[in-house]
């Protein structure tokens, strides 16, 4: 590799930082300096002398039969090194996270707008782009299956996947379904117990992760016939597991190293360019880089499931919930991706953090010819939260109760049972979190006389001087699970090494955890410092040379990989103390490592770690598994399905221009129980970021799909919140330890994205009096000009 590559790959080398901060402190990010200098090498910065650029041809149709593909003209283009179709795939042609239903390149049909059909490798991205245009595909265009009604009537509209194609999926165009019955379910008897009934139909649009760093990476053919891939992903090992069979290689010949990741939010759980770049590198024998343009990024990853939901709640006159009857339909699009797990979450969490004695629930994910949907921050819990929280507000209005009081009255707490029958065996401070957001001071009221009009809805466009502006306040609370559920053996691996370097004890931490920006590597260094009493910690780049860390998703990495680092560090500590016992004959039982020394609580310092270690290194690897969970019963949905729960409450204050339908969120408050804040600065940053994505879903973010076609695959047309759209987000962090988790911590990242959306919509509703049963709320919903 050239000097430029080595310069560009600083983050693929060890990063060492020194600090006194262990857990509970907020040391600076070890990768921060590289990032502010512009030297941190993201996956799109990978560079290799003599590398080629890869690009895919994508389908303009959501549903079509492919009659022929002619690559001859593309192949003749000067500067083009290879053009590949599915016929060139050396191994199996399908992959998938849970169901292997997705072809690496389309075979005889395309099932969604943007599906990859052929690949080009060329010497310049523009050459590749032009060659892609020269590939001729003959299609027989078919009417796409895009609605629930069409998907559930396959005899009329056909199948997205022919029934014989995949044994593992549900019937018809149902990808996965989960039912749940709790208490007596919903019977006439149960219904008779309710004095008040509230029914509603709700809709959630398709949200995109919209991480800033485009899907990208560099595949380098290795001398042993294998592939070295430098890539931005959320789970190195599961990428490899899906890639190897398609490349026709044993797993050990597919080596992945994490390149810098520019955000993920679930959008990097599925494969994107990994197989494509590797196939091109295999064929050409040269390094191949693929960097998605923004439109290709919208086509190349799965999105948040759009949902249609119907909720019915019955309650007594004094506000106690009696039953709920729920149906959730999630549009999974063309391929399964994570849909089965999303359905499990939606069904089990879809009644919110409330005690409801009788529940009937059905959640399904459909196969359609819409874009594929899978993991996005909040994972199935987000859509449902909009449904049940809107219901709570409507019920409160119906009963003439305060909406926060109604929620508190029904709030679950430790010892209560979820509708899955699982008893909550750690703190669940739902009512307390609501009290906290309610008690936080409100922003000053609108003062039209002394106002900077840039702070009004419409902001810089100068659309109002205060006329037609109404303020509203709304509340919400949500529940999210942490870690992988339903019997999945979720684990992570960490290797910790302790040695003397430059006269100081230094700990090295090596895991395969994808650092996607969340700050996991900062926390790993803190854990190593706490357990080993050292200041210097080296973080080794994440790669497949160490065991799997599982996915950076489901709010699980601090719990799981943090837990693995803790176990490995504890093992190293015990080994070091043992070494001292052997050498010095210590008999004390109160030994610990503090400040670079072995200390006895009673006798103080015994020996420095430097002297004890000498030139020997202690290097140990440990796996951390969380306690086992179990699958939900297919029919009743009962089971100990989730390992941990996390709760967040929000209050939103909004100003609405009722004439133009413009919304300005003035303040968004959050209170969350994090168990133990390992790094308070990062925890607050995660909560604020999570709230911001929820704000996006509430008022602006939606992939517009019409007849299966994506209409806004760009940052011009798909809007994500700017610094003008996002208000101050005061955060109140509660720390009630979970006795089952390392350090008592709780996963943090997703809960605010689940809970914050409904509070904003509730505030708009309070300001305008309009029902607003669909998100994102658009100006025309407010002005009634739809």
């Amino acid at each position: 590799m050239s000097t430029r590559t080595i310069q560009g790959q600083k983050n693929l080398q060890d990063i060492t930082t020194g600090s006194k901060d262990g857990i509970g402190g907020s040391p600076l990010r070890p990768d921060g300096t590289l990032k502010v200098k512009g030297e941190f090498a993201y996956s799109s910065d990978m560079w290799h002398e003599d590398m080629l650029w890869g690009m895919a041809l994508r389908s303009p149709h959501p549903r079509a039969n492919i009659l022929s593909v002619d690559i001859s003209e593309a192949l003749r283009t000067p500067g083009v090194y290879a053009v590949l179709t599915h016929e060139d795939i050396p191994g199996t042609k399908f992959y998938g996270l849970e169901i292997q239903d997705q072809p690496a390149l389309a075979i005889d049909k395309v099932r969604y707008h943007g599906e990859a059909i052929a690949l080009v490798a060329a010497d310049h991205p523009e050459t590749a782009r032009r060659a892609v245009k020269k590939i001729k595909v003959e299609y027989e265009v078919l009417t796409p299956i895009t609605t629930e009604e069409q998907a559930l009537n396959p005899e009329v509209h056909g199948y997205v996947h022919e029934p014989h194609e995949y044994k593992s999926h549900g019937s018809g165009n149902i990808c996965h379904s989960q039912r749940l019955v709790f208490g007596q379910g919903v019977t006439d008897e149960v219904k008779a117990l309710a004095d008040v009934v509230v029914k509603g139909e709700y809709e959630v649009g398709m949200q995109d992760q919209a991480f800033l760093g485009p899907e990208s990476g560099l595949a380098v053919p290795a001398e042993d016939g294998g592939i070295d891939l430098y890539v931005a992903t959320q789970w190195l090992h599961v990428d490899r597991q899906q890639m190897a069979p398609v490349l026709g290689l044993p797993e050990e010949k597919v080596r992945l190293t994490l390149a810098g990741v520019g955000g993920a939010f679930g959008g990097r759980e599925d494969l994107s360019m990994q197989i494509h770049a590797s196939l091109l590198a295999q064929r050409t024998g040269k390094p191949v880089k693929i960097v998605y343009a923004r439109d290709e990024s919208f086509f190349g990853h799965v999105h948040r499931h759009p949902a249609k939901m119907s909720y019915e709640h019955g309650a007594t006159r004094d506000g106690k919930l009696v039953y709920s009857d729920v149906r959730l339909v999630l549009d999974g699009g063309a391929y399964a991706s994570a849909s089965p797990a999303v359905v499990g979450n939606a069904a089990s969490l879809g009644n919110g953090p409330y005690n409801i004695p009788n529940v009937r629930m059905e959640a399904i994910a459909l196969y359609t010819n819409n874009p594929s949907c899978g993991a996005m921050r909040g994972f199935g819990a987000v859509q449902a939260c909009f449904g049940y929280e809107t219901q709570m507000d409507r019920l409160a209005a119906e009963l003439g109760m305060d909406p926060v009081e109604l929620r508190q009255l029904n709030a679950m707490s430790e010892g209560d049972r979820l509708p899955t029958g699982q008893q909550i065996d750690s703190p669940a401070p739902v009512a307390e979190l609501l009290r906290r957001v309610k008690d936080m001071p409100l922003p000053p009221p609108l003062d039209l006389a002394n106002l900077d009009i840039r702070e009004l809805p419409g902001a810089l466009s100068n659309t109002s001087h205060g006329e037609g502006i109404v303020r509203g306040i709304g509340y919400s609370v949500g529940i999210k699970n942490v870690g992988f559920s339903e019997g999945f053996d979720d684990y992570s691996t960490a290797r910790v090494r302790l040695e003397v370097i430059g006269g100081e004890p230094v700990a090295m931490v090596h895991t395969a955890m994808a650092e996607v920006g969340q700050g996991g590597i900062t926390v790993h260094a803190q854990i190593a410092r706490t357990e080993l009493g050292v200041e210097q910690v080296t973080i080794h780049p994440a790669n497949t040379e160490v065991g799997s860390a599982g996915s950076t998703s489901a709010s699980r990495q601090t719990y799981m990989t943090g837990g693995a680092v803790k176990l490995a560090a504890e093992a190293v500590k015990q080994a070091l103390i043992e070494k001292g016992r052997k050498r010095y004959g210590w008999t004390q039982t109160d030994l610990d490592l503090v400040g670079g020394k072995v200390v006895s609580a009673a006798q103080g310092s015994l020996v420095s770690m430097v002297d004890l270690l000498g030139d020997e290194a202690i290097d140990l690897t440990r796996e951390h598994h969380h306690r086992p969970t179990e699958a939900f019963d297919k029919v009743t949905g009962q089971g100990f399905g989730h390992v941990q729960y996390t709760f967040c409450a929000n209050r939103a204050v909004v100003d609405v221009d009722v004439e133009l339908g413009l919304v300005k969120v003035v303040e968004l408050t959050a209170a969350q129980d994090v168990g133990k804040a390992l790094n308070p600065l990062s925890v607050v940053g995660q909560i604020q970021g999570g709230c911001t994505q929820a704000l996006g879903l509430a008022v602006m973010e939606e992939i517009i799909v019409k007849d299966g076609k994506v209409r806004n695959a760009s940052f011009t047309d798909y809007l994500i919140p700017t610094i003008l759209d996002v208000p101050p987000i005061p955060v109140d962090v509660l720390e009630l330890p979970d006795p089952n988790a390392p350090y008592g911590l709780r996963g943090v990242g997703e809960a605010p994205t689940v809970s914050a959306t409904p509070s904003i919509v509730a505030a708009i509703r309070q300001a305008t009096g309009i029902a607003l049963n669909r998100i994102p709320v658009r100006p025309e919903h407010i002005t009634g000009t739809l």
Partner: protein
Amino acid sequence: MRVTFTANGKPVEADDVWEGESLLYVLRERVGLPGSKNACEQGECGSCTVYLDGTPVCSCLVAAGQVQDREVRTVEGLTEESGELGLVQQSFIDAGAVQCGFCTPGLLVQTDALLERSPQPSDTDIREALSGNLCRCTGYEKIMDAVRLASARKCQKAGAAE
């Protein structure tokens, strides 16, 4: 074509530049300055912001040929000659404003430019100035903190120099 310009005070030249290439592409792929980021290449996200003759621009919207004989300063040029971090860079780290960091180079250049013309901006001024730079991770609160911190440090430094 050949394009010659100054990047962070040093003369650079790029050969065989295709006329459709952007300044961003030339910086990232031809002259070894990958600090400016490519997130939309449509002028919407601000990740690629650089100074062109002292004015912040989206380098993805500037055709390479347009920079002939001009001066470009990128995020790499915010670091002091000594290798020490610039004041805005250090403030972003200290405030916890860097998560994935993909938006950071663009925000640093834009913030640097803001504080050059207005050393003590109001919150609304900051929001207005940074409204062309998307960040998907932080929720912007810590970015506000970082800019306020940089402003305070800059004023303190100016005060000390007087």
